[in-house]
């Protein structure tokens, strides 16, 4: 796999040759917005304003941004417990996310879910929930639905390297393959499932071996390289849209924060290697993109400062608004159990 698992490598700027500058700028903006939104959530969780757990994907933003570049609103995207990036990369509103995290009626899930249960149907985000691998079979069904309806929409199932240990994932891959359902399985391999390194949980460090076992095309990419992710996803999504069945993308990445909440150095109580962490911080999807763009002359320090400031304002505004929003009415408890 070209040493992708070695954190001391791939620190150089990413290769953006041949990429449209406007597209790159959009991706940079998306990555930065996700980054700043999640850092804000980390701060607000630390200072106690957020009551529930937040699973942050800082460091992993390029995966969702690269994948989403190939999606449209009629596609069907499913996530899991660490899905802020997945929904934001599809264009969900910052305010909707923040309000949801705060359990407000104006949130993406109308305050019924919090950080771990996100929904943005109009943008194709079908939902995320925290049961590990719980949405993977659902994605297969949503893909199958597209096929049965005669559209070329695709389903995307984001999952982690830990989720791969759940039987549900293997059943889903086989089912998708046998039915030739249009599903892109995206494994964000950040080497950890809460406190456990993949070496303690699986015999090998890469999960793409399951793609070949299930006979579907796959690519393994540097998940911290938005261009590489975009290109690989583009090839795989083309394959899928053209009716040739599911595919598998493994994006190698790392989360800067621990499993849950704002601490960087510990993973639900277990110390992490600070050397690995600082190496992974150096394999930053954001700075590697920025530096490459600056070198190519399609981005400048000034533009960057403006962008940071603009997003900072968005974040603050969205947060303020969410903080002032109302909680769900008591009736929400019983009114939303069944359709009406």
């Amino acid at each position, binding site marked *: 796999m070209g040493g992708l698992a070695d954190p001391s490598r791939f620190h150089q700027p990413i290769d953006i040759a041949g990429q449209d500058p406007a597209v790159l700028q959009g991706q940079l903006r998306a990555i930065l917005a996700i980054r700043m939104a999640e850092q804000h959530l980390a701060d607000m969780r630390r200072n106690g304003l957020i009551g529930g757990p937040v699973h942050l994907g800082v460091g992993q933003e390029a995966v969702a941004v690269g994948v989403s570049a190939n999606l449209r609103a009629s596609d069907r995207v499913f996530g899991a417990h660490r899905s802020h990036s997945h929904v934001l990369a599809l264009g969900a509103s910052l305010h909707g996310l923040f309000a949801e995290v705060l359990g407000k009626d104006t949130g993406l899930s109308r305050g019924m879910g919090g950080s771990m249960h996100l929904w943005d149907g109009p943008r194709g985000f079908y939902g995320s929930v925290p*049961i590990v691998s719980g949405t993977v079979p659902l994605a297969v069904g949503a893909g199958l639905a597209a096929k049965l*309806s005669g559209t070329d929409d695709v389903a995307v199932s984001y999952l982690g390297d830990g989720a791969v240990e759940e039987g549900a994932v293997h059943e889903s891959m086989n089912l998708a393959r046998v039915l030739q359902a249009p599903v892109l399985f995206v494994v964000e391999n950040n080497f950890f499932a809460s406190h456990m390194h993949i070496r303690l949980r699986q015999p090998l460090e890469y999960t793409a071996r399951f793609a070949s076992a299930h006979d579907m095309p796959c690519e393994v990419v540097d998940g911290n390289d938005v261009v590489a992710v975009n290109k690989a996803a583009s090839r795989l999504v083309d394959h899928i849209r053209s009716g040739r069945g599911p595919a598998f993308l493994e994006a190698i990445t790392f989360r800067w924060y621990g499993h849950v909440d704002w601490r960087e150095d510990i993973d639900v109580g277990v110390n992490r290697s600070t050397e690995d962490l600082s190496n992974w911080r150096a394999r930053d999807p954001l700075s590697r993109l920025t530096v490459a763009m600056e070198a190519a002359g399609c981005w400048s320090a000034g533009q960057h400062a403006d962008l940071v400031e603009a997003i900072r304002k968005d974040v603050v505004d969205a947060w303020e608004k969410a903080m002032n929003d109302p909680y769900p009415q008591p009736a929400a408890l019983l009114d939303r159990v069944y*359709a009406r």
Partner: protein
Amino acid sequence: MKYNYGTAICAAFEYILETYPEAFILGQGLWSPWYVGNSMTDLDKKFGTHRVIDTPVSELACTGAGVGAALAGMKPIVVHPRMDFMLYAMDAIVNQAAKWSHMVGGQAHPGVTIRAIINRGGEQGAQHSQALHAWFAHVPGLRVVMPATVADARDLLIASVVSRDPVMYIDDRWLYDLEDDLAPVEELDLAVQGPRCLREGRDLSLVAAGYSVRLALDAADRLSDKGISAEVIDLRVLNPFAPEAVVESVRKTGHLLAIDGGWRTCGIAGEVMASVAERGVSARMGRIALPDAPAPSSRVLEKAYYPTVDTIVATASRLLS
């Protein structure tokens, strides 16, 4: 037209597949005449194997796929030829389907129908016999139906598929030969269906669901020979559980016998009794359920295991004496 319980289910499928292009069926054994009795004969041939999909042995993924397809606007029906196999699929049913609408603020509803077949007896033993309807009755967010009549076999299945909520439709192989005439289909709104009195009586309320209703009806016949007038209430919908009709009946008869083909503790028979008791209706109450044991396989033990009309008649007589 004459139907039996099995062909009535098949008629429901035909109606659904003809009427709703977004309906499809996914499950094990759909291309074999053996797994699902006469309840799905030739559907694959009539509607195509793309809409009647026989699957790998993957209960969890197939059930979850039904949930996901429903979220994408389809009307999927997932078929489990035995309820026992569904133990693998509990996450998709309980963590996902049942909770989805609530978790996302009522903005999306996985209107999947999960057809769970109770298929017991025949010396098949403990893992090929279970009737776990009480489990699903326990879980908010699921609708649970258990048809006991030929008409309900068809009409509650159609209502389940048309419902926007996830529905557990539980049928019982022991009912498949039951015959009746059926009127043309009229779609029912599942949300307003509930327990129904199938036979009026003065002395005693027999309350049951699914196959146990047939036992209760036969027992009521036998009891009437003994001069006991038994009312029979068919629960039909176990979740959301609406006990009012039962409570009214017991208020009248003063005696309740709840009969269940599932286990006793935390079962539906107990729920019926509790629902009456908490409403302050004073009545003598009894229940009949499975013994506290897994299903045996040996034929002699099978006979002792399942409730019969005799058991009901004897217990009812004791309750009234």
